[in-house]
């Protein structure tokens, strides 16, 4: 496995954990107004308008996708034209095999346009987001892919207000948990006991549900 080294460089973060997307969004806006530089937010689902609030620009992946699509279209045409017109024209029933059969190349050109766009764009997305199979994730909260939303502030950055003020602000905005020196971790770094402790709370009702189910099935 490869380590993903965006967060794992022993960086310390000030984090606020929220359980409601509206509160998170409001907190981001408030902090931004105060001039606090926010590192990033981590949410289990896409929170609308959060990227605007954080000041992110719309991704340029669409331009890349368009270029890939053009390439696919061109490949489709080249493929069909070279094979059926240039290299080995198949004359069937004395019909011409030249550029006038262009219309029958359209389906293949179309399909390759789609194929190249889809794969090109997804590969670019993975590359841009530094995602690859086997890479280790860096998490700030074990439940950030479940029900918690994390607002992370890089401690190395100079902020307009003091760290204590940020913590009080986060609490005021409804953070259920704050931490002023949190390091990123990944699931393979957590020990078994820690894991059992972490999963104890959310797991209890699950077990109860299955146990009520089992006797019924027997």
């Amino acid at each position, binding site marked *: 496995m490869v380590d993903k080294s965006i967060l794992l460089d022993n960086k310390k973060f000030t984090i606020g954990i929220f359980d409601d997307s509206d509160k998170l969004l409001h907190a981001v806006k408030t902090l931004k107004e105060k001039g606090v530089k926010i590192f*990033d937010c981590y949410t289990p689902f*896409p929170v609308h308008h959060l990227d605007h609030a954080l000041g992110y620009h719309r991704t340029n992946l669409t331009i890349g996708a368009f270029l890939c699509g053009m390439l696919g279209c061109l490949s489709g045409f080249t493929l069909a034209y070279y094979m059926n017109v240039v290299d080995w024209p198949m004359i*069937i029933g004395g019909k011409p095999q030249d550029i006038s059969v262009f219309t029958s190349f359209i389906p293949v050109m179309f399909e390759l346009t789609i194929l190249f766009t889809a794969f090109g764009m997804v590969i670019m997305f993975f590359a841009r987001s530094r995602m690859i199979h086997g890479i280790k994730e860096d998490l700030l909260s074990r439940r*950030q892919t479940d029900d918690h939303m994390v607002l992370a502030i890089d401690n190395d950055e100079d902020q307009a207000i003091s760290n204590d003020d940020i913590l009080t602000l986060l609490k005021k905005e409804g953070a259920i948990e704050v931490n002023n020196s949190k390091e990123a971790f990944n699931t393979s770094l957590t020990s078994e006991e820690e894991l059992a402790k972490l999963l104890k709370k959310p797991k209890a009702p699950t077990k109860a549900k299955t146990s009520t189910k089992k006797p019924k099935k027997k």
Partner: protein
Amino acid sequence: MYTADIRQPLVTGGKTYSDVTKDVCRPIENKPTPSWWLGFSIAVLLLLLLAGTLAWTVWEGIGTWNVNKSVMWGWDITNFVFWVGIGHAGTLISAILLLFRQKWRMAINRSAEAMTIFAVFCAAIFPLFHMGRVWLGYWPLPLPNAFGSLWVNFNSPLLWDVFAISTYLSVSLVFWYLGLIPDIATVRDRATTKARKFWYGFFAMGWNGSAKSWGRYEVVALILAGISTPLVLSVHTIVSMDFATSVIPGWHTTIFPPYFVAGAIFSGFGMVLTLLLIARYVMNYEDYITSEHLEAMTKVILLTGSIVGLAYITEFVIAAYSGYEYEQYAFANRMFGPYAWAYWTMMFCNLMAPQVFWSKWARTTPWFIFIISIIVNIGMWFERFVIIVTSLHRDFLPSSWVMYHATWVEVGIFLGTFGLFFTCFFMFAKFLPVINMAEVKTIIKDKE
């Protein structure tokens, strides 16, 4: 949060974010239930039947099928078109409904997309084995070869089909996988066993739900939906061209592309309903797949069923009006010839049966929808059977008229593909989140 007061909530039961996670991860994190084992065993038995009948076909030759010089397409291509059609609902739900901002799709798109992929697997078997020598299955690909650089023929709709279906399968896989990544990450972060931690970690690709990634992710999903929409329409258009570009009476009609696309969506929704009604019952997902979802899907069935019915009638009227006796005969033969039973089964199942969905009771009663969805599946299989067999069995030369009946091998392969389909689906239900957690969490408070 968007709320429309005349609408019911999309997720009932007052679920919280962590409830969604727990409910969806339950089958993955616990041992399979007895009902899962039962269904899975039946599916694997059918899969063995598939393996056996295919092996027999290869060993003994294509003569084990009853396809003959008049009816050269028989059950085989019927099943191919049937399975490709089934797949279309998945893409419709995940792509077209995303473009139309139909949020009810979110609870069902994952399983519908999975169904698409498995259905295309099943479909691909038929043309491959129909070639007779399946080990030469790579011949339709545009590869350099030792036959005097004789390339594939780009004027042939059969070649377009090769490109369309393979693109469709790969793009659907990518779209499905992209949607799965955040949910796989959720399973990874809850994992208690080493194996689960490793495999879900491997496939989650380091996803941590950062706002930057989500921003890009949503754009990618939107563009993928945008390109999948014309793709799905093109696939069945091209499948219909396999027929429509020929000069066979009964096939040579310009109405085929839209008629086939509507039929594909119709049959696909039939299959989605069949599967989801079972899944929601067995896995207790009534709070996610509510009667609102069922109602919306039955409305799509009603619409596409009516389009298909209209196409049947249009086809008939055009044939009658054409003044072309072969075309007229082909249609008279369909309705009153030796395969009339198949034609009227099709008419009943596709045109009449879905009309019950005009009633609200029918649209919201699960057991009733289940019956109709099975009828729709049967009807759409018969549609392809009628189109293929009745058009071929009596051609221009009466001396070569034949009757066509499938052998046990052909029937076995068809039943076997259900085995493949359900084996894949049961594995999917055990190892992957059946409901798109990330998307459902965005709508648990919505009414739309």
